[in-house]
């Protein structure tokens, strides 16, 4: 994580796993508060941003798979780290398996990506 700060100090920006970048103009500021904020941002942006990379890539992978395999199920919403679908009951078992697999294989990290799937009659029940 300290690498992230020193990278920012050298290059002026930080990057995520998939090369998204964020510039931190205050990283070498003499003002303690501004610099401190930039330093914390240098640490958390690669994490938040990589999480964004992951969920975005999962959306593309899952949406493509649904089309390719002619499923009727549809991706409806993305909220934080969650994808919400509507699914006919005959596809439910398939979808649970497919979505879990694609989402957990989105990017190969040194730790496993774990996906919880739930279903219900409303979004509230699918929790």
């Amino acid at each position, binding site marked *: *994580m300290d690498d*992230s700060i020193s990278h920012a100090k050298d*290059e002026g920006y930080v990057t*995520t*796993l998939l*090369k*998204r970048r*964020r*510039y931190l103009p205050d990283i070498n500021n003499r003002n303690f508060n501004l610099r401190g904020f930039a330093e914390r*941002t240098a*640490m*958390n*942006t690669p*994490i938040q*941003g990589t*999480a*964004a*990379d*992951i*969920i*975005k890539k999962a*959306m*593309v992978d899952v*949406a*493509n798979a649904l089309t390719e395999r002619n499923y009727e199920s*549809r*991706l*409806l*919403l*993305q*909220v*934080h*780290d*969650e994808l*919400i*679908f*509507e*699914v*006919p009951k005959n596809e*439910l078992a398939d*979808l*649970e398996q497919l*979505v879990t697999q694609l989402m957990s294989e989105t990017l190969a*990290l*040194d*730790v*496993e*990506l*774990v*996906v*919880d799937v*739930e*279903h219900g*009659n*409303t*979004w*509230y*029940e*699918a*929790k």
Partner: protein
Amino acid sequence: MEKLVLIDGNSIAYRAFFALPLLTNDKGVYTNAVYGFTNMLMKILEEQKPTHILIAFDAGKTTFRHKQYEAYKSDRQKTPPELSEQMPIIREVLESLSIPSVQVELYEADDIIGTLSKRAEEHGQDVRVFTGDKDLLQLVSERTHVAITKKGITNVDWYDEAAMKETYGIPATHIPDMKGLAGDSSDNIPGIPKVGEKTALKLLKEFGDITEVLDHADDVSGPKLQERLKEFRDQALMSRELAVIDRDSPVDMSIEALAYSGFDSSAVRKLFKEYGFNSLMKHLDNDDDNSEEASAELDDFTFQHEDEVTSQMLVSPAALIIEDPVENYHHADLWGMAIVNEQGSFTVPIEAALASDDFKGWLADSTKKKYLFDAKKSTVALGWRDIALQGVEFDALIASYLIDPSLSSHDLADISERRGQHTVLTDEEVYGKGAKQKKPEKDALLDHIARKAATLWKLVPMLSTELEQNDQKDLFETLELPLSTVLAEMELFGVSVDQEQLRVMGTELEERLTTLEKDIHTLAGTEFNINSPKQLGPILFERLELPVIKKTKTGYSTAADVLEKLEDKHEIIPKLLLYRQVSKLKSTYVEGLLKVIHEDTNKIHTRFNQALTQTGRLSSADPNLQNIPIRLEEGRKIRKVFVPSKKDWVILAADYSQIELRVLAHMSGDEKLMQAFHEGEDVHTKTAMDVFDVLKSEVTSEMRRNAKAVNFGIVYGISDYGCLRT
């Protein structure tokens, strides 16, 4: 004080070449070394403000050193042709920047730099040397400082006398002695076998220079080292010779000839444009001459305002504007259409365009490449009219966002302005903003839409080069661009809501508010308007005599943070906080959601913003899905209204578990954290064991809570102080 900047041309070009991906401009010419070199040069000019400057180049493969030692630099790999090709362009850049350069037959750039730095010092000038090669450190003196490029190239490590002492512990002039002993494999200087830099420095620190080290061979520790020092004595002295920079080489250039008085921006701008160095334009003065020149360029553009779509328009590639400036594009009229391609620039009235089967066929043809600005919006706008848009090859909005997400505006005009193009006004300037937005009269409207298409056409190659320079081509092409299609489909498809349930919730929340209102009035001992800070203030701070935390211009502050501080001071405060939360839920979500239900589909069609957040996360509007409160049970219940659009279908939710902590574990490579995940252990307990140095059984809930705060403190960027307070 006069200051001479000396740059080791070959070395910097070489570094730039290997530090950057192999870029090409739109004519297929390799430009990565030129770009990196120029970028560094602009930075040096701005930061150093030299009064004198020179770039030194090597003359050729053969130098006077080869006469001394045939194998000198013989292990060097051949310069890659992709780099050699760029050297003439680098010279062209130097010429346009009016920076002198020189090379001297049989001598290396190092010798030129050594010679001129010596002359400059004699003139009383300060000298700054830029190189990727540590050989030049031998020049360091009180007046001469040397910058060595680090990984990447615009960053350098500075060496002055103090830094030399700290790093090497020997005087700069003894650097060749060090090479004499240790050798230098990159230059094929042999030195003494099995003596490395560390041993060499130790010996030099102990005995002085190389001759003294060799003379004291019997006094060094270790019989093997003693033997080698004696056996390879001549080779060591010859190696030192090779490493010594000739500071009196025949450089036919006076210091006066190196005086620098800046460059002519317009010549440089032309060159930068030619090679696609748009991101370097910011270094150039943006004087009025240039802006006139740029807008004049677009005035030369002739637009053909046609009544019908013609075949000339429907080629590939083409820049396409489907004008739809209304914020909520799910309900919007389209204002116009423009196409710019190699055949010309065209506008057609939108009604005529959308009635044309040829145009619709072209839009749907994925082999016809299209450049757009906010392709998702156009896809959705056309989608509502059952027209498919495919073959989107480029999206200038997303490109600009990826290049720099921190910019507050990615309007086409601002994107182009930043790249020295003044070819179009912003939508806001032409149409007005928000409620004041107005469609201008026909000619002005057509002109603006046509200009947008022309600007887009010009921007695509520039943005494309920048994405390549940032190594973001993949991110753009395989993630963000396909994602915008996925998002467009989601937005168009919408989500069904149970309106009956929504109304029931509205009633429930209303009743909840009534009860809370009664409680609050009872606790206050009087009836008043809870929503009015003007009435609430005197109740809290005069009638109930609670301590005043903050005052405003108009009276007492009753803001949320003030109330939170008073939470345990009076029973009324928690009730007030709850009242506000419930009231917000009712207005934002119950009433808010009812408002955005589309009358044709009875669904909610949110709009994802793919070009907004600094972190790269998506955001959404109408409704803002990311913001539905889930802490409060009442808030969580809002999710009950989101239902499948077909009977007997179900909602499936797939949620990444602890994704940020997992990413943290991956990126930090923290073994304990990773182990916790591998073993399926509770991560916060594991951190607590580590931080408090206790066994698992000894971790208290307080310790775990603190550990959790530490973990999330890093993830969310909370300050150390904030962490501890939680």
